[in-house]
């Protein structure tokens, strides 16, 4: 009797546990009572927060919508997925480290796994079309930008729902601003972003909202393509001080196609995602035929060299090739020769990280334009490109390549030339050769400069530059402290020349203020300003004036004009020696992975970003059998150069 009771109580405990597990895993679809509760749930704390900040969270009537809004829905743009795509199969993907949480904010959340559960696989209001650069619908069915470009109106797709079955409504957007501004998430950047960038959220009805932006920008929609993912308020009903620990391993309901069941998290080993059969966007124009594998298994391989081995051995379906050596040496394997593995190279047109030399003009000798011009000609990046990068990369042209029409159309980096370099050095007074062949001026100062870099892997590049610069009579010393120390040194402007790559901007046009405005060069007392990215210490009033105008402008034509003008000035100033760009992405995949006809799209950054590939199980079977019998296929290297810029 007792034992029966015990068992019974145990059973009900189990049920409760299951219910809780289902509630706090967005992978399960809620039903009946639980679903109703979730749909109608409103957080009291959030409501109080809304009331407190009534100038931000506004309520309005649907009739209050401004008249004359131009609603857009991205129709008319081409679809980039393939109608031939087949759903199904299991894909194995590598991650460098096992994620330490499934949260997408807070401690440990910015790991490499995040993009697979959030960035590329969750749905924002609108998404940028990888072909046109315009937008296509995500959670929003339609959108409209106000005249002053400071408010954007959205009509939420009535079909949109979270993976647990709760439909996406206006409150899920209000909740973002409560949640992301909370100190409980311990993410100051997010706190700041959601406080600073947006001015109001107006709810017209459950499916219509408008969001205000602090600054008028020509590309206002940018603030909605990678931010403001609707948050499942009901899932966060235990949101509190202990959020970071309580929600570490809870998978939040997603509006995207893949979910993670608790049983599929094998801590430290692997995580498996499962495709939702009934994903709400399955038949939406721009989302159809994407996210095709049924399951995606993530395994951890920490060493990048080992990743290549694992891929070639068949443990991974696809492999991201990062270097020319990776493309040639690491894939120089029988499985590639026999055609089981295909290599693909896709020329894209995205902003490039600008690997370049930046000259600190506040240092002696380097304030002389002729010395800088000489250094431009004395830096043999052509040799680096040819030998170190095996002819696989291109010379960078300007400080902001890859921004389409916003990049300067015809400026080119100065090519290595001993004569021209020596000519400019002579103009600067460096005419005598020392006993070691390094040029000197009348005062006996040598043309010797130290190049700092925090990149260990680029030491050989500097070695080549050093050796070839000797021909032009310049001595380059190489300083390679540990990364943070190097970064600090450069930020404090203690360098002479730095080899670095700064992040490209998130806008569709380049950024100049950070790198070229005098505000970031000197403090008001005339001393050098630390902690800024103006590594060339550029401070010219006319540049400032242009940059200020550029920053304020909402007119894309004006922006383009100023960008070109500035780029010309930067070129003439010669403090920026353009390095190299990688004009494509490369990958390798087993031949059963299939792609749409054009492989990817113009603005795609990586092969797996758009998730348009699929697994053909027949070809997989055929390939595996061929491998057993030793039958070879034709070796394939696919080059897609439709968007190559000569």
């Amino acid at each position, binding site marked *: 009797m007792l034992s029966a009771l015990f068992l019974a109580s145990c059973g009900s405990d189990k049920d409760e546990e299951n219910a809780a597990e289902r509630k706090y895993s967005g992978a399960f679809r809620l039903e009946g009572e639980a679903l109703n509760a979730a749909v109608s749930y409103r957080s009291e704390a959030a409501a109080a927060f809304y009331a407190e900040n009534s100038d931000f969270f506004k309520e309005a009537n649907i009739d209050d919508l401004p008249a004359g809004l131009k609603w857009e829905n991205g129709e008319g743009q081409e679809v980039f997925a393939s109608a031939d795509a087949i759903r199904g199969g299991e894909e194995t993907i590598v991650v460098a480290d096992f994620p330490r949480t499934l949260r997408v904010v807070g401690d440990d959340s910015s790991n490499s796994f995040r993009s697979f559960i959030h960035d590329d696989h969750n749905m924002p209001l609108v998404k940028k079309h990888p072909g046109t650069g315009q937008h296509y619908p995500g959670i929003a069915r339609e959108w409209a930008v106000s005249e002053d470009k400071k408010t954007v109106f959205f009509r939420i797709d009535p079909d949109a729902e979270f993976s647990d079955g709760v439909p996406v409504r206006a409150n899920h957007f209000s909740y973002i601003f409560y949640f992301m501004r909370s100190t409980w998430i311990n993410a100051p950047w997010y706190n700041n972003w959601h406080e600073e960038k947006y001015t109001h959220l107006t709810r017209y009805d459950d499916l219509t909202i408008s969001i205000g932006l602090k600054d008028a920008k020509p590309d206002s929609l940018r603030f909605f393509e990678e931010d403001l993912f609707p948050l499942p308020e009901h899932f966060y009903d235990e949101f509190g001080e202990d959020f970071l620990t309580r929600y570490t391993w809870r998978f939040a309901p997603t509006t995207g196609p893949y979910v993670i069941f608790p049983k599929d998290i094998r801590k430290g080993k692997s995580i498996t995602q499962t495709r939702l059969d009934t994903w709400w966007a399955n038949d939406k124009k721009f989302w159809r035929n994407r996210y095709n594998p049924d399951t995606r298994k993530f395994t951890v391989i920490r060493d990048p060299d080992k990743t290549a081995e694992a891929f070639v051995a068949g443990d991974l379906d696809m492999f991201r090739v990062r270097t020319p050596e990776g493309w040639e040496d690491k894939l*120089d394997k029988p499985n590639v020769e026999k055609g089981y593995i295909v290599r693909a190279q896709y020329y894209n047109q995205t902003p490039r990280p600008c690997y370049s030399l930046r000259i600190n003009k506040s240092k002696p000798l380097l304030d002389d334009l002729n010395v800088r011009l000489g250094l431009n000609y004395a830096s043999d990046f052509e040799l680096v490109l040819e030998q170190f990068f095996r002819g696989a990369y291109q010379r960078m042209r300007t400080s902001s390549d890859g921004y389409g029409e916003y990049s300067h159309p015809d400026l080119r980096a100065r090519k290595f030339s001993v004569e021209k370099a020596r000519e400019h050095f002579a103009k600067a007074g460096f005419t005598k050769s020392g006993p070691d062949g390094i040029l000197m001026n009348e005062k006996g100062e040598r043309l010797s400069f130290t190049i700092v870099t925090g990149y260990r892997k680029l030491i050989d590049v500097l070695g080549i530059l050093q050796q070839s610069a000797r021909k032009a009579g310049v001595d380059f010393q190489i300083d390679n*402290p540990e990364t943070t120390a190097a970064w600090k040194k450069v930020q404090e402007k203690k360098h002479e020349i730095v080899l670095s790559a700064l992040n490209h901007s998130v806008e569709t046009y380049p950024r100049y203020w950070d790198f070229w405005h005098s505000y970031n060069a000197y403090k008001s007392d005339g001393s050098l300003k630390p902690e800024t990215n103006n590594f060339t210490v550029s401070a010219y009033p006319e540049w400032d004036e242009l940059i200020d105008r550029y920053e304020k402008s909402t007119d894309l034509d004006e922006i383009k004009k100023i960008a070109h003008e500035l780029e010309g000035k930067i070129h003439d100033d010669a403090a920026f020696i353009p390095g190299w760009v990688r004009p494509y992405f490369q990958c390798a995949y087993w031949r059963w992975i299939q792609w749409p006809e054009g492989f990817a799209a113009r603005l795609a950054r990586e092969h797996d970003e758009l998730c348009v590939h699929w697994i053909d199980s027949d070809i997989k079977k055929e390939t595996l059998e061929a491998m057993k019998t030793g039958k070879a296929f034709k070796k394939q290297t696919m080059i897609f150069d439709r968007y190559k810029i000569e």
Partner: protein
Amino acid sequence: MKGFKLNPITVKKLKRFRGIRRGYYSFLIFLFLLIITFWGIGEYFVNSRALAVSYEGKLYFPTHSAFHPGTDFGFDYSYETNYRDLKEKFAEDSESQVENSGGSNWVLMPMVPFNPFENDFIEGKYGPQPPTWEGKHFLGTDNVGRDILARLFYGFRYAMTFALLYMVAVFLIGVTLGCAMGYFGGTFDLLAQRVIEIWQNIPFLYIVIIVAAIIRPNLFILLLIFVVFGWTSLTYYMRTESYREKSRDYVAAARVLGAGNWRIIVRHILPNTISTLVTFLPFVVASAITSLTALDFLNFGLPAPTPSWGELLKRGVQNLNDPWIVTSAFSGLVFVLTIVTFIGEAIREAFDPKKYTVYR
């Protein structure tokens, strides 16, 4: 140090060392390597500059002279002459029988005609190149076309300079302080011991990492750090030795005869402790080489592009597909450490006090 005469027993020990063939020959090989790689001498064996050039009846010896621009030898560039090109040019000239002095020009290149920094790229070929006899890259090149043998050769020079200077410094400090501790004893001994104990607990590797982060280390800064944290171990041996010797009758006798502290230490105690000290020599050298290699391997050692064995090893590990890099570095390291160990073994055997002590 006037008056420091080798103890006859020590002389005997040295003779015995010569008798231990393996150690003795290792010593000779080691000495040979040291000499040919020595500063100023190594350049005659491995260098991109020619040993001698005869051009239009004039002789040039570029190895240690100021640089000769290409224009000096009929090239049209004003940077340093590429002597390998010059050699080819002269060869072509003599073949085409240019009637003027062309035929009498010649260039004598060193055995390995590359310096350890230059990138000898081969058009159309990428990555590390395997060893070739015709290309004169006897051990191949690394991924940026630098000659492995040249880097090994000059890497050895740096490693040995480092190790020998380290040894001298550590012995100087260790012996002086250890001797003083053992001989004077008392409060000084007590204090010095405590200081050493504390000192030994400072994590040496962290210090190197921190220093490497702040300043750009060079051979002498690294040496300084190594010495500052490396001298302690020897003091204890020396302290014990002099403590023991101090209580011997001959020291008392010397003192009775009126010898001062200096004379007693230098003339009596040191010669009698030398056997212990000498045994440590090779091992200190070996540990210095391995430490420097390890630091270079971890990127905290000599600044790039200084040739170094640790860097070469790392490069080899990163390019396992091109085995000549790692093989060269590894064999080189093993070879040197082995002969140093053989020398050490022989010294230990030759200087074994049990064999010669008068106090049986």
